[in-house]
């Protein structure tokens, strides 16, 4: 949330942890008495720090690489990319987040680290959801979580297909929804809605344009 608030300014801190930290200090001061109502008036609700034993435990372990916030009652971790396989594995093994609901990405072309990769997790025993997100640069790769949740296989393939993000250690990273020879990754912001791989369309469909 904090980093989307001002899209044109690329956040200088590498993990985006400085800004949420500033928010953390500001939020309790302004929104402590009535946090949903007070902040809602001018610019909508703001993320507030998420406090729970789980957060305390991991904050103690990872310190500044990990930031925990709550927005509209939904909890999320914003973590350093280097913590990614560890934190996901710990969430599954120790915190019983046994169900990986979804993996997706968001493209912010103005940012230095252009992509947010988002894991949406759910725990059956706790009946609780959490999102984990991290920022990576264009061309950088991220460790695959297929060994943690088998379901990540197709989900990561789709993220690769749509955004071109590489997942290290994925057993079979290839396109899933688009044809194998397709060029380009359509959910990037610089890919226009009418754009297509004309060469592919011409060779495989024998037409000049699919429009």
């Amino acid at each position, binding site marked *: 949330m904090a980093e989307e608030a001002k899209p044109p300014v690329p956040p200088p801190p590498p993990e985006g942890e400085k800004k949420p930290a500033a928010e953390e200090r500001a939020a309790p001061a302004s929104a402590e008495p009535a946090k949903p109502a007070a902040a809602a008036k001018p610019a*909508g609700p703001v993320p507030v720090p998420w406090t729970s034993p789980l957060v305390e435990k991991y904050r103690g372990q990872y310190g500044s690489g990990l930031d925990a916030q709550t927005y509209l009652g939904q909890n999320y971790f914003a973590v350093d990319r280097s913590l990614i396989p560890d934190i996901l594995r710990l969430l599954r093994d120790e915190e019983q987040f046994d169900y990986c609901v979804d993996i*997706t990405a968001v493209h912010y072309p103005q940012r230095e680290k252009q992509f947010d990769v988002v894991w949406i997790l759910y725990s059956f025993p706790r009946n609780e959801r959490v999102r984990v997100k991290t920022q990576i640069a264009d061309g950088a790769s991220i460790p695959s979580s297929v060994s943690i949740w088998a379901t990540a296989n197709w989900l990561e393939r789709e993220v690769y297909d*749509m955004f071109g993000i590489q997942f290290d250690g994925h057993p079979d990273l290839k396109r899933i929804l688009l044809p194998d020879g397709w060029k380009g990754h359509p959910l990037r912001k610089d890919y226009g809605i009418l754009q297509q791989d004309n060469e592919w369309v011409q060779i495989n469909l024998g037409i000049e344009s699919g429009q």
Partner: protein
Amino acid sequence: MNDSTHDASSRALSNLDLETPEKPYLDSNELIINMGPQHPATHGVLRVILKLDGEKVLGTECVIGYLHRGVEKIAENRTYTMFNPYVDRMDYVAAVSNGLGYCEAVEKLMNVEAPARAKYIRVILTELNRIASHQLWLGTHALDIGAMTPLFYTFRDREEILKIFEKYCGARLTTHAFRIGGCQYETYAGFEKEVKNFLTFVAPKIDEYEELLTTNRIWIARTKNVGVISAADAIALGVTGPVLRASGVKWDLRKAQPYAAYSEFDFDIPTGTNGDTYDRYLVRMAEMRQSLRIIEQAVNRIPEGPIMAKVPKIIKPPVGEIYHSIEAPKGELGYFIVSDGSTQPYRLRVRPPSFVNLQALDTMVRGLLVADVVAVIGTIDIVLGEVDR
């Protein structure tokens, strides 16, 4: 003849080559065959590449994307209101559920809540749609397996649901029934009565489907112990909906994290024990009856009042992101929306139950026969419009 005991496949082989019974059939390598994309039993355009040893399935690979329309990209180029009808085109046999999930997700992002009456109307229509979706599933699934009659029965009865939809909003399939903030249409005169009539009409029909199949020897032979998936595998593969429940996991988002007005109704979560095709059939049959219970309670207690919350004409959710999911007939249908404060979503991700459930196909069919692949594709209950989006 070799007199030691063999399983079925090596028995066939023993006639051909006594020295090396583990050698593949006819001394050939594995056979790769292509099923689909234009195959009646794939329920759309799904291509499955099967690796076979004789008739035994050694592995599969699904090739999908034939119906990919770039729904998520379209969402980024449409306003929140304009995108609403597009979601109906994903799981087009349960369009009402798609609309409910989308409208609730945007409402949550805007911090508004639909009025009580709208929530009740939503529950009634969504549960009717769940029955319609399960009926279509049952008819086509049974047809795949070789039972033709259920198709005619279920389509005949599904028609009554579609008539209610048509009278309510003018459309039968891609209904666009809900709006962000509530419902656009008030119920028509006689809506409650017609819904109640439908309940009394369809309850004995569900018994009729069961009479045809539940104790039918062929049905049992084709479905029992076919396509088994354990609860642990199902959870690891992210499988949800009736497929997960048939493996014995008592989890339904309507109970676990209630949305709309579901917390106000009394209903059970049917579960299976074996996680096979037969249990998934029983779970869905029981779910239809639970839906009838929910509809009955909702239609008897439907409150008076407005059907739209106070929502601005131009929908501009504040900067932020939200994940909201509902229990669609096929499993967990989620929407992850990132707003940059403008009238269009910055990013909209659909978490499609069919796509994730289809991934479990490989686990479920390994070691089965080719004919069972058809049964397992049917039992997962996929809609390719949602798999490919």
